[in-house]
């Protein structure tokens, strides 16, 4: 490297790298923002930590094999949560079976096939609005559409479909975003080879969008397991001490059970409530951990 004319006689490598006031300022700013963003992240984690901590301390002692695998007794002031646990798993599973295929297919259509027209823009807007509909409104829709009109009665099916409608926007938006993150050049390369749109989607686009799709699934699992309002009138029972045998049965559910013992059962011990909440959170965490593990497994396999 040569010195320019304007060096003013100053030479030597040490001075060449000396910090200018601008450098120093940029450095300080960079440090400041780093600290600021770190703090925000911390603030985000604090409530989660507190909630989990309190539940662990107050509900932890309630958790036992007995608690998890036995039926509620003494007018729900004692006993376990087994039917609610099983019911929640049913609800989550059935609603995923409904929402994932529909949501992924809709997202593929919107991102890969539909042209940009007022119609698709309208549909996209509708999806975003669907995400903003309060869950009690979804509940009323579910009662009208699935319980009464479709004739499913108050059943796992009606409740799951209601939950599926509610979580559909999460799946669609996550899938659409991850499809659009796949570079256009990949598609063009395939089309140039004479691949149809579907061949292109199957061989190149979907395999690279799968981890984003799973993010949508993870988000919707959490919402499905935690919601009370949409299932209250469509399929979740106040007290139903049997395990469901088909999707046409009613069922108990964790979120609903928690709501009931907290508000409608005088004399239910706190330990029971905290234990139920802890189990619900743990269940959601486990399901999410499963999908996250699967997602990172897929990510490890595919990269560009």
């Amino acid at each position, binding site marked *: 490297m040569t010195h320019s004319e304007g060096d003013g006689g100053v030479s030597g490598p040490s001075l060449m790298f000396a910090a200018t006031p601008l450098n120093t300022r940029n450095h300080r700013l960079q440090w400041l923002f780093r600290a600021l963003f770190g703090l925000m992240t911390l603030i985000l984690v604090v409530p989660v930590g507190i909630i989990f901590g309190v539940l662990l301390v107050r509900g932890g002692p309630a958790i036992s094999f007995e608690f998890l695998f036995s039926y509620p007794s003494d007018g729900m002031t004692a006993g376990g949560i087994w039917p609610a646990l099983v019911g929640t798993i049913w609800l989550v599973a059935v609603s995923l079976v409904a929402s994932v295929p529909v949501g992924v297919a809709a997202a593929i259509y919107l991102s890969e096939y539909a042209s940009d027209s007022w119609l698709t823009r309208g549909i996209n807007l509708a999806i975003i609005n669907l995400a903003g509909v309060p869950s009690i409104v979804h509940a009323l829709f579910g009662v009208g559409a699935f319980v009464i009109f479709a004739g499913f009665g108050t059943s796992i099916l009606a409740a799951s479909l209601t939950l599926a409608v509610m979580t559909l926007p999460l799946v669609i938006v996550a899938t659409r975003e991850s499809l659009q993150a796949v570079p256009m050049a*990949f598609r063009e*390369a395939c089309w*140039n080879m*004479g691949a149809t749109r579907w061949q292109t989607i199957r061989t190149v686009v979907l395999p690279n969008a799968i981890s984003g799709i799973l993010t949508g699934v993870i988000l919707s699992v959490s919402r499905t397991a935690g919601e009370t309002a949409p299932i209250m009138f469509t399929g979740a029972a106040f007290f139903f001490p049997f395990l469901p045998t088909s999707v046409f049965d009613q069922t108990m559910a964790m979120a609903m059970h928690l709501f009931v013992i907290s508000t409608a059962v005088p004399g239910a011990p706190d330990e029971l409530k905290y234990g139920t909440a802890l189990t619900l959170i743990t269940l959601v965490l486990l399901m999410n951990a499963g999908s996250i593990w699967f997602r990172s497994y897929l990510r490890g396999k595919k990269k*560009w």
Partner: protein
Amino acid sequence: MVVTDVKLAVRDLNILYGSQQALSGVSLDVHEHEIFGIIGPAGSGKTSFLRTLNRMEMLQENMTVDGSIVFDGHDISEIKNVYALRRRIGVVFPLPVGLPLSIYDNVALAPRLSGIKDKSALDEIVEQCLMRAALWDEVKDRLDVLGSLLSGGQQQRLTIARALSQDPELLLLDEFSIAVDPVTTMRIEDVLKELKEEITIILVTNLVQQARRLADRTAFFLDGKLIEVGETEALFSGEVKDRRTLDYLEGRFG
């Protein structure tokens, strides 16, 4: 002069993006078994021209094309099965596109799409195409590695191998050597000279000397117009119809 078969006949071709004209009134013939060079400054419509040859305009909403393009005696606007047309035309882009599949799958993709399933047949195609693209020696021990993790120059050769795997009759190369080092470029150029015996090649290049080395005939595009087409040797020896061609060839432009 020998009578040559016309592989591709283009007449009065106009290309529009929205209302902006990218190419106007281009007519030219590309002969069987020749390397047809296209040169011209940035934005002169070279890439747009290539895109229309395999009907990629169908996939681009704002792009409209009129005029006629006859490929092997068929007017391509009347071909219903555009997928079959595209399979007969290999394309290599300026920037390498290693698909996020293994090296093997990158090259085997086109044959698979056209229905070849037999493992040994695929193995043979993959090996042969990688050899021709001067990449085989570098990757033969790691065919299961992701193609998108290769270096830029390697990915470009992978792209060429992929284009060859379609067993195309017409190969379109759009500034293929941008991301490739000079030594490899020379190797690929040698391959192209050999390929000419079997197929027809259209070579868009920003390197005037590359056109001189490879092209039998060369077309000069400027501002969306075809200025002239001629035997490459004749053009470079100064037998031009239009002053601007000579200026461009000799680097006096702008």
